[in-house]
């Protein structure tokens, strides 16, 4: 009785979570809007990283740039 009750509860929770995962995968994560959003995010991240890298490079050697500007 106890084993069957516990296994019933465990199976019910497992199946519900599995169905939840499958439905969210089907209706949310495989949709075009989600794919587009992730692509946009990846692009924005790459752009931010490259900008941050260039800013860091500028801050690391400001004197050399100034001297280059004078020449």
């Amino acid at each position, binding site marked *: 009785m*106890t084993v069957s*009750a516990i296994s019933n509860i465990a199976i019910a*929770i*497992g199946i*519900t979570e599995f169905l939840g*995962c499958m*439905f969210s995968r089907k209706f949310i994560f495989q949709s075009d809007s989600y794919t587009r959003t992730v692509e946009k*995010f990846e692009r924005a991240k790459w752009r931010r990283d490259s*900008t*941050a890298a260039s800013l860091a490079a500028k801050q690391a050697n400001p004197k050399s740039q100034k001297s280059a500007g004078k020449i």
Partner: protein
Amino acid sequence: MHTTTILLTKFILTAKEAIKLKREEDELSGLAGMYYVLSLCVYIIHHGFHHIICCSSLYFAKAEVARRHTMANFYPSIAFVFLYRILASEHSGELVGLLPFQPFNFLQNVTFRGLSTKMTAKELNELWLQTKGLDATKVLSLDVSNVSQACAFAFIYILCTLSIKKIVNDIFGVRAPEGVGGGVDAMLDSPQNQKILSSFGVDANEMKEARKAGKGLGLL
């Protein structure tokens, strides 16, 4: 001061992203909006215009991805509320298990939920033997020493939720892309939500620091 602010505001309006921000700005109260424009101008002067566009678009995208993932977790949680109601009606007042220890007082509210509080250790022993399918008169069980060892459905449900649900989600669930972070955390970083927070009088920078401190302490 006023003319400089106008000039800087015109400068912001040249970019597409800034136009969007300004439109949303008008919806907010005047003082909070003005404060936001000023802080934005200071940020642009300090970090450069390109940097702010990159950051704002990144935060928008990050918040959007986080929102999708939060929604994907939200809908199954509604299903779990219904599942709890169904299983609780099925197993209410039923002894589901017997703990090998006596739980703390505050934990007993969960482990003993739905069971009769007036039960004695002897009665619980009999009930336990009945649930195991044994004759209480013939078998002398030493399993039960205290009534608090009784385990109701709610405790098993919580344990299953913490273990099985997590394992199934790890196997079949979709993980957020790297850099999105926690759902609500990422959503709070978006410029729109930052403005909403500032309109409520919450300092965004202070909140960021508090969140960082909370993360450091392992609270968030």
